[in-house]
């Protein structure tokens, strides 16, 4: 198993979640949760089904509104912003099921995610210039789809769709990247490629990943947070978390 005990530099937190609570008709899916992510850190969130992992990402990206608590991204309060404003602030989100535009080509999928011309007039008079084409090609090569630019996205394999969605995030160049089960449904070789891809793209940004595949988690994680019933059960390096008796009880040991 890979040792991931990087020394943590004393920097400001990119993301600080404090006292976050969301209640659905009385059921607290996330309960008084606090979480701090540092610059350039790869943080993996694990936990049994229903622990509130996806809900945490939903809360950060604005898909769900928090009942209480605060989410600060680079000092900016996110709980008051709309989804697209949060994206503009520099947070990118990949969904659990590949969520791409199947009627459009790979090129168009990436182009739509290019951060320019994001209002009505900008989109109307958007020009596909060299900057856009170059950037799209660069990202496409990075996500192993360089030769599939003109393929309609609905013809891609499941793994390729996952990569395409990651690519759509990369082209936005977010400072915080949130990935919900990026290797779910992938073959072994695709997993390897994805882990490799994640290592490359996380050089200059922070990443928050939800994942079930323990081998994959051990491969990529700087630190691991274990959620259980909407609360943080344990936090630290993979080794520490794996040897935590509380974690073993609820999750790893079954």
């Amino acid at each position, binding site marked *: 198993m890979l040792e991931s005990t990087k020394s943590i530099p004393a920097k400001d937190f990119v993301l600080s979640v404090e006292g976050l609570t969301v209640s659905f008709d009385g059921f607290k899916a996330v309960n008084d949760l606090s979480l701090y992510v540092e610059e350039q850190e790869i943080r993996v969130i694990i936990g049994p089904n229903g622990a509130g992992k996806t809900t945490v990402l939903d809360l950060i990206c604005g898909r769900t509104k928090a009942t209480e608590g605060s989410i600060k991204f680079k000092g900016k309060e996110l709980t008051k912003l709309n989804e697209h404003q949060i994206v503009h602030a520099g947070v990118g989100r990949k969904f659990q099921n590949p969520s*791409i535009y199947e009627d459009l080509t790979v090129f168009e999928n990436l*182009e739509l995610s290019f951060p320019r011309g994001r209002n009505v007039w900008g989109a109307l008079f958007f020009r596909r210039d060299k900057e856009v084409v170059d950037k799209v090609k660069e990202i496409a090569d990075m996500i192993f789809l360089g030769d599939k630019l003109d393929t309609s996205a609905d013809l891609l394999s499941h793994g390729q769709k996952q990569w395409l969605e990651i690519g759509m995030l990369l082209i936005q160049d977010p400072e915080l990247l949130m990935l919900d089960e990026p290797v779910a449904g992938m073959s072994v070789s695709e997993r390897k490629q994805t882990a490799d891809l994640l290592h490359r793209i996380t050089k200059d940004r922070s990443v928050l990943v939800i994942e079930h595949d323990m081998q994959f988690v051990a491969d990529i994680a700087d630190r691991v947070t274990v959620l259980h019933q909407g609360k943080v059960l344990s936090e630290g390096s993979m080794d520490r978390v794996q040897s935590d008796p509380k974690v073993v009880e609820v999750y790893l040991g079954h």
Partner: protein
Amino acid sequence: MNKFADFIARNQYSHMIILAVLLLVILPLSMDIFRLNLVGKYLTYAFVALGLVLCWGYGGILSLGQGVFFGLGGYCMAMFLKLEASSPENTAIQSTPGIPDFMDWNQLTELPWFWEPFHSFGFTLFAVIAVPAVFAFIIAVAMFKRRVGGVYFAIITQAVAAILTILIIGQQGYTGGVNGITDLRTLHGWDIRTDEAKYILYYINALLLFICLFVAAFVIKSKLGRLLVAMRESEERVRFSGYDVSGFKIFIFCLAAAISAIGGAMFTLQVGFMSPTFVGIVPSIEMVIFCALGGRLSILGAVYGTLLVNWAKTSFSESFPELWLFAMGALFIGVVMAFPNGLAGIYQRYIEPLLLKLSKKDDSPSAPTPAAKDASSDKADNNEETLTSEERKHA
């Protein structure tokens, strides 16, 4: 024949040119002015169908109240013409000369304030577009900012159509009530009822339709057009790509409303009156049928669909008036079930490959391949391509 097939299949403007030849040359030469005026009237509905292609076909926003915008545009034009027709000399026998006749019948003694600006033709032209667009903007902001969509939006637009009809009929003194605004005569002294005027208006109408077609084509080919397709598929993803989805929906709905309104104004000019029968639920749904039959992803299909259904309506209802509505209903259901992309879809799937085959026979092998998916950087004919991929999805 091969040359012709080649032209149609290869030239991206060929379909537009063929429509132009049909509307500007063939129809005017082959029809008397009565029939041509009828075609002109049908073409005003094509504006609405075109608007529906944008907001329903591409944007996925089904509006069952487009008659509202057609009607508002038409009423704005009718108000100007009515004021001109109600000069004090023409209305000397009324108890209050100088106001429209229906106001006099309803015991109004002075022109209501909102009629005043319609003395000016410049203001009227502005209002024809602005009034429906602002109205559409208010509806769109109220709905889309709250993320109301789909069936709920359709029902609300239908309710708006019903409400506006009731309002117009109820406020007889201000709107002419159920009769509408009738007896329109001149535009700046130019008699719009003569045959010559009807020819000119037909051509102005056709010209405006082409301008709207070009605007629609521009929007569809722009990134905004691709965003609309993307939104139709996955609104959430668009939102998380950093776009304010409601802004785009508001824009396309207002654009569709403005285009419909131009049709309404041209209707008033060509037919010579405007009434609430063109505002309500029935005409609004008919417009959706025109659009669906023509193909809701094809701007030209909308024009052909409108012409064909109305031509069928006229000839069919001359012989079997009571059966027409059933026939149209059956046609609508049939087309939607068998050919979800309407006539344009049928053309794309069956006729275009045939034309390409014909054009390829006597050609060098260097000919570009038909399914031009390969040239993504040169997506000139985006409209057709989106349709093919949509076709494939349905197939």
